């Protein structure tokens, strides 16, 4: 069934169709309509789940972790400062191997107080051991929630499904709502090997000395390394059932590109419009949209960027005192790759300033005029 829904509700439908069983959520700003609709679904029994209204995002994640430990499929949603308040518990979720799925609306961090989009909130949690899926359409948001549970529960690793504030969260788009029985066939109930139950007592999160801790982290990394192949495989399985494919990245006219944009989020779709405009002008542009940032798709990025003549990484985020974060990641992946192209780093659109096809055309003009990068950061659209 096709429906016109906002990105926030695409998260809600994703959680509903995945049959989330426990949904702890903080209901006030920076919360969005995600959990409002889920609370209505719970109240009307459309969704058979326990909705827990908590006093903070920290408690929301703590509740997700304990419910997940007890064997429940859990979901919550937040944004910006709310995600930051969860920070301690994000480590607890991944370290404890609880495959929670979290919807995060990418909002700029305060101050100045902002409800507009950039990626610094979620990228600040890059190293917490969560998978991160950056979405470009409301359909992708819904589909990603279902797939995040499938991959996360197979590996016992939590996952964030991430979407831009306003540009997706409050934008209505046509979304195919999958049928429940097909989703059930794709995503069986969550049955962890070990769970909190009086019938079979286990200790969770106990004191772990130097003789064991190191191996727990090694195992988390080893399982994270399995994720890229699993994400691709899960995407293929999903495509067979639902006709829509999602992978680690989304390639748009990359094959013969002289200039390849590396993009993400809604800007990752707007870039496609710029690619077509540039090709009309005779410039062979392409767009590599990064969908998954953790695990980082090293092989895919090396394969695609290895063939490009130039790459322009577009960051809607910054690591202060360093570069845009995607720029760091892409350069790091290309280290030692023979014939790696010159890679330019651009920062634009912080705090919700619009990223338009013209933004990408300005970036293309800059990159095409130079042999290689001669500045650490190229700022696009900043008032100086």
């Amino acid at each position: 069934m096709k429906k016109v829904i906002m990105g926030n509700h695409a998260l809600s439908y994703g959680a509903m169709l995945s049959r989330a069983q426990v949904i702890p959520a903080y209901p006030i700003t920076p919360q969005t309509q995600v959990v409002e609709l889920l609370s209505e679904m719970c109240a009307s029994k459309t969704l058979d789940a326990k909705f827990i209204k908590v006093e903070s995002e920290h408690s929301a994640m703590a509740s997700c972790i304990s419910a997940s430990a007890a064997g429940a499929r859990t979901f919550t949603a937040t944004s910006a400062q709310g995600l930051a308040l969860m920070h301690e518990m994000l480590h607890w979720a991944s370290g404890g191997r609880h495959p929670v799925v979290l919807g995060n609306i990418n909002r700029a961090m305060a101050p100045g107080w902002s409800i507009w989009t950039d990626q610094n909130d979620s990228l600040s949690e890059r190293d917490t051991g969560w998978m991160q899926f950056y979405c470009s359409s409301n359909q992708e948001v819904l589909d990603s929630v279902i797939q995040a549970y499938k991959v996360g529960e197979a590996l016992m690793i939590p996952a964030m499904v991430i979407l831009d504030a306003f540009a997706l969260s409050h934008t209505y788009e046509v979304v195919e709502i999958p049928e429940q029985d097909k989703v059930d066939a794709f995503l069986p109930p969550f049955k962890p090997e070990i769970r909190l139950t009086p019938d079979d007592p286990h200790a969770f999160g106990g004191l772990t000395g130097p003789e064991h801790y190191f191996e727990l982290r090694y195992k988390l990394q080893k399982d994270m390394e399995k994720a890229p192949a699993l994400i691709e495989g899960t995407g293929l399985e999903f495509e067979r059932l639902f006709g829509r494919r999602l992978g680690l990245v989304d390639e748009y006219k990359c094959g013969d590109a002289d200039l390849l944009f590396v993009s993400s989020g809604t800007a990752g779709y707007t870039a496609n419009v710029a690619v077509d405009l540039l090709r009309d002008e005779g410039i062979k542009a392409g767009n590599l949209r990064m969908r998954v940032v953790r695990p980082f798709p090293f092989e895919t990025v090396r394969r695609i960027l290895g063939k490009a003549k130039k790459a322009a990484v577009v960051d809607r985020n910054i690591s202060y005192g360093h570069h845009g974060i995607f720029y760091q990641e892409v350069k790091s992946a290309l280290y030692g790759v023979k014939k790696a192209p010159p890679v330019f780093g651009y920062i634009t659109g912080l705090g919700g300033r619009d990223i338009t096809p013209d933004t990408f055309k300005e970036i293309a003009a800059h990159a095409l005029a130079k042999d290689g990068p001669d500045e650490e950061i190229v700022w696009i659209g900043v008032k100086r």
Partner: protein
Amino acid sequence: MVEIRFHGRGGQGTVVASKVLADAIAKEGNWVQAYPEFGVERRGSPVVAFIRIDDKRIYDKSRIYAPDHVVVLDPTLVEAIDITEGLKEGGTIIINTDRKPDEFPFRGRFDVRTVHATEIAVKHKLGNLAAPIVNTAITGAVVKVLGLTKLESLAQAIREAIAIKPEDNVKAAQEAYERA
């Protein structure tokens, strides 16, 4: 690709008007995107909403700066703000007003159409006299003038989206369709 901007005031249902229209357009198989102004809304203050329509997937997620058409739910906005900002030359402006199209200064540069949606809303008892809800009526006029979807699809979209007095809202849209 067709891009439309809606002007109203907070509380008039401007965003709902764009959403209902998007629903109706999607029913005919087109791709559509609808979004409010990115910010906070206050009752009574000017509000903007947008829709973008295409027969193929819409990749452009940037905001709309040069709409093809403009829809004005509150006639007082015509004096208060520049409702023609960025509007493409020859674009259509649909205004809820009791005035005639040639009474507007921008007549000539743009194709101005008027419909008295407020009178229609009052007649069908939508909202109250002080604050009539004109959003469903205006969508009827938009469908008539711009032909983006069938009146039938609009009626269905209104029935699905409007919980209070759905049939009266459908009638208001139908009447505005006939009068526009």
